[in-house]
């Protein structure tokens, strides 16, 4: 059950180098202000770097990377705030396709995911009070909201009741450019895109897992992976915030000396650092927990997410505060990290939901912190 430190380390190094060269603050600014909301060139680069094949089975030419390696990449994604749908397409949708696609479906789609020619998004949440999405006679009807990267996805994986087969909840593959699909596209506060979708009888291809894994179980599993990946992304952000804040404390002068000589600010910087280290430890433990069956991992995965949400917010608030007026401007990366963390916290279940799941799963026996 050991994870592969070496692969993770190599991935972290190469991703950091790429992002440092290609995704600096100003380079990112160009992506942010581009109407597309992402960089098609960067997306091609990711494919070349193998990032989009990270979760693909080795049989399909992928790396079949473990959560540690995925986390290494996601930390870099966080540290430079990459805008492309790595999480939505290369991790979540790819994971669903691996688990729920038939051999033929995998053979058809996985290569296109790996080479970047298809961007997938997962449409799951539905607006309160609307009738649930349903597939009848191979066509899907209903509404989905807040589909991350649903604005630029080529195809969608959509959860819906399969009225053709007794109403069981299943996953379906849908062409995002279908005429019967109406999309309200918008940006999130961190600049990434999303969409609310209205399906009015869109042709839908059902995913048919060879091993009959229920769709609900597959979704739960993939969302746990996504949750932990978002913790790693938060870790990357938090490390960047702690580093930039410490740097600012050394540079910025007030009343004739660096503000970092003030003990009150020093101690608060230390508290930020401690939170960073806890986020790192919990993320690492949650990555290890992903190798366990779903039931046994709930406590650590949800505990990590709940703790990371609160801790990362504290770090972001302090980073803004210690940068003074600069902290709230568009012109400094701090406010961008702040906004990305907001989105992160709202994705894949709220802090309260994960806290409740953590508590429900809590019984104390052996220490769980010992990485397997």
């Amino acid at each position, binding site marked *: 059950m050991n994870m592969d430190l070496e692969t993770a380390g190599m991935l972290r190094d190469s991703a950091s180098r790429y992002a440092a060269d290609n995704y600096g603050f100003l380079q990112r600014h160009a992506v942010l202000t581009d109407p597309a909301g992402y960089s098609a060139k960067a997306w091609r680069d990711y494919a070349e770097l193998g990032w989009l094949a990270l979760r693909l089975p080795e049989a399909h030419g992928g790396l079949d990377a473990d959560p540690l390696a995925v986390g290494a990449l996601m930390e870099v994604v966080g540290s430079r705030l990459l805008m492309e749908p790595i999480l939505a397409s290369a991790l979540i949708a790819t994971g669903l396709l691996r688990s729920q696609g038939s051999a033929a479906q995998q053979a058809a789609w996985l290569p296109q995911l790996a080479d970047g020619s298809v961007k997938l998004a997962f449409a799951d949440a539905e607006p309160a009070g609307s009738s649930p999405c349903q597939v009848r006679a191979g066509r899907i009807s209903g509404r989905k909201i807040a589909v991350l990267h649903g604005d630029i996805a080529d195809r969608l994986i959509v959860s819906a009741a399969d009225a053709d087969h007794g109403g069981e909840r299943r996953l379906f593959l849908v062409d995002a450019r279908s005429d019967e699909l109406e999309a309200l596209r918008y940006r999130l506060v961190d600049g990434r895109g999303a969409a609310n979708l209205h399906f009015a009888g869109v042709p839908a291809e059902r995913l048919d897992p060879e091993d009959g894994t229920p769709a609900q179980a597959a979704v739960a599993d993939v969302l746990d992976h996504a949750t932990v990946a978002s913790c790693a992304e938060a870790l990357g952000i938090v490390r960047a915030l702690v580093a930039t804040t410490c740097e600012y404390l050394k540079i910025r002068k*007030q*009343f004739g000396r660096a503000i970092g000589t003030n003990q*009150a*600010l020093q101690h608060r910087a230390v508290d930020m650092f401690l939170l960073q280290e806890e986020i790192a430890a919990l993320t690492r433990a949650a990555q290890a927990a992903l190798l366990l069956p779903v039931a046994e991992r709930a406590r650590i995965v949800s505990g990590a997410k709940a703790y990371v949400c609160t801790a990362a917010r504290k770090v972001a608030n302090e980073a803004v505060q210690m940068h003074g*007026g600069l*902290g709230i401007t568009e012109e400094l990366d701090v406010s961008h990290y*702040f906004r990305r963390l907001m989105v992160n916290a709202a*994705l894949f279940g709220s802090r*309260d939901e994960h806290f409740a799941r953590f508590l429900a799963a809590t019984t104390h026996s052996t220490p769980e912190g010992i990485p397997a």
Partner: protein
Amino acid sequence: MTDPLDEARDKARRLRADIRSFHERVMPDDLKRKSHLHQVLGKDDYVRWMRLLNDQGWAIGHWPKEHGGQGWSLLERFTFEDELARLGCPWVIPFGVKYVGPVIYAFGSEAQKRRFLPRIATTEDFWAQGYSEPGAGSDLAALRTEAIRGEANEGDHYVVNGQKVWTTYAQWADWLFCLVKTARGEQAQKSISFVLIDMKSPGVTVKPIPTMDGYVHVNEVWLENVRVPAENLVGAEGEGWTYAKYLLKNERTAGALLGMACHALERLKALARENPSASPERTAGRIGELELRLLALEVASYQAVESMMRGTDHGGEASLIKLRGTELYQDIAEAAIDLLGLAGVAWDPAALHAASAPPLGPEDAGGIVKDHFYNRAATIFGGASEIQRNIVAKGVLGL
């Protein structure tokens, strides 16, 4: 024994009732709606708002009667802003009526009074404040903007060079009141003067500083060889620090976010009712703690005002009110964001200021998100929390 404050309390109570009635009967629906949705107001909105207040005699209610005001007590003054904020009304733009106005009637020349005060009352002139500079935010002694008295042949004027920063709504301003250095090498506090600068003067450049809510509230103001007539010096040269302190003393309660926090908490409670969350007990407990902090802020604020009026204040009250009010307001905003869930992040800052409905959540979701962003500045601007704590440590605790 009659409490000498009884009269002020009665007046404040009546003022509060009048404000409610004004809000219900006089305030135009479109302005109410914009304000209710926390949409960004433009200059036109603000000017209209300030004039509405002035029509009630309130814009300069705190000015002495001899200058056209109502001679409000500190309690009335505090009640006025508190109640407006509780009702969710727009910000009372302070730069003219609250900041520079009193400095002019207290220290300005008769000509300055005649020229500026009437136009301040009616917001015919829109004012901005030129205090902060890069490297001199909380540390005014580090000011570097210089005003050099011109040569005789150039007339009686100053030539001003320097840069101001974080200047709120400078993009709309007709006038800038400005701290400048009029002497070199002297003790910092004796070298600072208070001048009034026409924003149309050649050499004045305003550069917006977009903030993370996607809007422009604050600016850099560059002053390059700006000629300022000597008659625009307020009071005496080298006394700018004194006037700034006078202004600050008038504004001891300016950092209070009591009314805004109260309004935001009411909205939060409504949100909780609208969106029963996964953990209603946790939400109720969290809101309850905010409610309790609001009670503490409320009693501390009003008692602070009364202490100031009795002259029994210890000097730390303003910091207390600001620290607690800003922390509370920010925490209420965070709770609202959490309750909104995805609706609290599904909004491009660049689109936050449009009147269109947000893609998710209630109609005012965008306004709530916008406020959450900009109000991170509440603990930074107007004397950062760190500075407030320094002030209390030194001034009150003697550390």
